[in-house]
């Protein structure tokens, strides 16, 4: 067409976050941790299951948060990596008779490989293009899982049933509670590792790329490597979340991993606050409980309630739960004085 070239001074996808605000303080962390440890002792099994769900979906939101809040790339295709993780765990448990705990690192490795490979073409994309490519990935995933070619392993449309693990060493707690604590330990481990990752040299490289890619590369950061690495790490954590999800739900089927899941994770991140890791759990709570409440008001309304709430969030508190937390902190500070 025209010989004119479009010159764009690219705006960052994400507003920069002050580093201090990335985690909770020590005191708050301990209170949250205590609440998470004690909670299942007082509630019914169904709520324990929902808490487990809160943790592993929180993990998936955290993974997206590392990708977006950390390196400034975003993905509407996390459901694809989640599905790969879930299927890896399910297949290894059901066909290879492997211990459920051992399937998680394998799911992480496989997802890391997929994420890293997907990161390669994604390198050339930014902003809307990346959103588009990952959106397409998420839409295609259920179709790929239904293929006759894989049916022997994936169970096709019917999916696979996964056996629920018992507590080991004859510990006197029920399956649900055991699974909750198992998930909690993994979640905390990954959370601490993620915080450290973002504070490390690599994490600073991620953030430099997020804030200004060209300046980062001028400083000698290998942009291509760190961008694909961010994709890989994010996919690996999503894969673990998927594996945990498969074990907790005891079932995997192509239709559980549609674009809806990817969108939920994305919304969870926005609601929790981009780049604020503790927000992942808040976001996860939002995507688990809001649809339930909305459905109880009217059937089929959850999409609308979701959307309206999301607009409220991006208009009133564009930094999500992090902003609320900061405001709350300031108000507490005023009360003390």
């Amino acid at each position: 067409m025209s010989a004119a070239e479009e010159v764009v001074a690219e705006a960052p996808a994400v507003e920069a976050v002050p580093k201090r605000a990335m985690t909770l303080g020590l005191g708050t962390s301990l209170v949250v941790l205590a609440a998470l440890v004690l909670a299942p002792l007082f509630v019914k099994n169904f709520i324990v299951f929902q808490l487990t769900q809160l943790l592993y979906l929180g993990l998936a939101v955290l993974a997206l948060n590392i990708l977006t809040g950390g390196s400034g790339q975003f993905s509407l295709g996390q459901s694809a990596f989640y599905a790969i993780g879930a299927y890896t765990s399910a297949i290894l448990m059901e066909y290879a008779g492997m211990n459920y705990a051992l399937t998680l690192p394998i799911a992480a490795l496989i997802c890391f490989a997929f994420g890293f490979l997907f990161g390669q073409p994604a390198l050339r994309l930014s902003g809307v293009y990346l959103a588009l490519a990952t959106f397409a990935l998420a839409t295609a995933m259920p179709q790929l899982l239904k293929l006759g070619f894989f049916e022997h392993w994936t169970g096709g449309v019917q999916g696979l049933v996964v056996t629920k693990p018992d507590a080991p060493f004859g510990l006197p707690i029920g399956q649900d509670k055991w699974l909750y604590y198992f998930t909690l330990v993994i979640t905390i481990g990954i959370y601490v590792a993620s915080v450290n990752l973002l504070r490390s040299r690599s994490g600073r490289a991620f953030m430099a790329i997020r804030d200004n890619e060209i300046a980062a590369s001028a400083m000698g950061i290998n942009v291509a490597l760190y961008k694909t690495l961010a994709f890989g790490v994010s996919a690996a954590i999503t894969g673990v979340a998927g594996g945990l999800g498969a074990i907790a739900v005891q079932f995997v089927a192509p239709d559980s991993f549609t674009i809806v899941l990817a969108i939920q994770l994305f919304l969870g991140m926005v609601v929790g606050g981009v780049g604020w890791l503790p927000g992942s759990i808040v976001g996860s709570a939002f995507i688990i409980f809001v649809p339930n409440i909305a459905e109880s008001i009217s059937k089929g309304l959850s999409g609308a309630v979701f959307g309206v709430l999301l607009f409220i969030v991006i208009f009133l508190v564009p930094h999500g739960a992090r902003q609320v937390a900061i405001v709350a902190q300031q108000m507490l500070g005023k009360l003390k004085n």
Partner: protein
Amino acid sequence: MELFTNQVLAGIATGAIYACMALAVVMIYQAIDHLNFAQGEMAMFSTFISWQLMQWGIPYWWAFLLTLVISFAGGIIIERLLFKPLAKAPILTNVAGFIALYGIINSFAGLIWDFTIKQYPTPFGSSPFLGSQLISTHQAGMIGVTVLLLIALYLFFQFTRIGLAMRAAAALPESARLVGINTSWMIALGWGMASAIGAIAGILIAPVVFLEPNMMLGVLLYGFAAAVLGGLTSPLGAVVGGFLVGIFENLAGTYIPGVGNELKLPIALALIITVLVFKPAGLLGRPIVKRV
């Protein structure tokens, strides 16, 4: 050979719809530099409106025109209410906004008209076109309407003051503002037109895919693929891309073993990614140069 011609013609017919969808996507992309993920849902909602109008006894073409007007107004209202305040926000916030809009429209369509599949009438009939077995009258009608739309848009952008102003506002907003163009309203106008073009796509494809709230997801994805293939900065490219994607989809479904119907969507994915990797600007788009 007859199978081949048949598939190419059917590809051109569905390609016409993808071209409309891609055109709508490009209209908004040109105006605000964002992809509208809710474009398909907006088109679906418009189609439902036209269906409702026909249920109330309004004849097809009147319902068609009325729907275009309503969609145009609806697009402008959405822009004014929701996306104008977000103009300066980061990309991420905008993407979240589009997804929220997607959820709201989809949910409301389900609430008002429920999720059962509805028949949608065609004004062209479905008999073979001019006695040939290759293409049905509805497919010919789809191509015809799209071509008319393209000519109208070309004339609008090339020969009217307001079309010129819209192009100026999209190309160089700052300079356009300096010469007295109200760029903010040009963006709203772009939204309105995109919404109306989407409505045309929805109304034309509805007899083929049937009317239900999720009918546009696949079409939107192909529309995206078409827009990317042709170049997001080029309306002409979007149209060319639309036809190419339509033909490609049909031929791949017919000739590549194991593809069939279920793999058609992953093909759109593969196409999007391949084009983005080798030619990020698309076939007819302008290359983008970054400046620090």
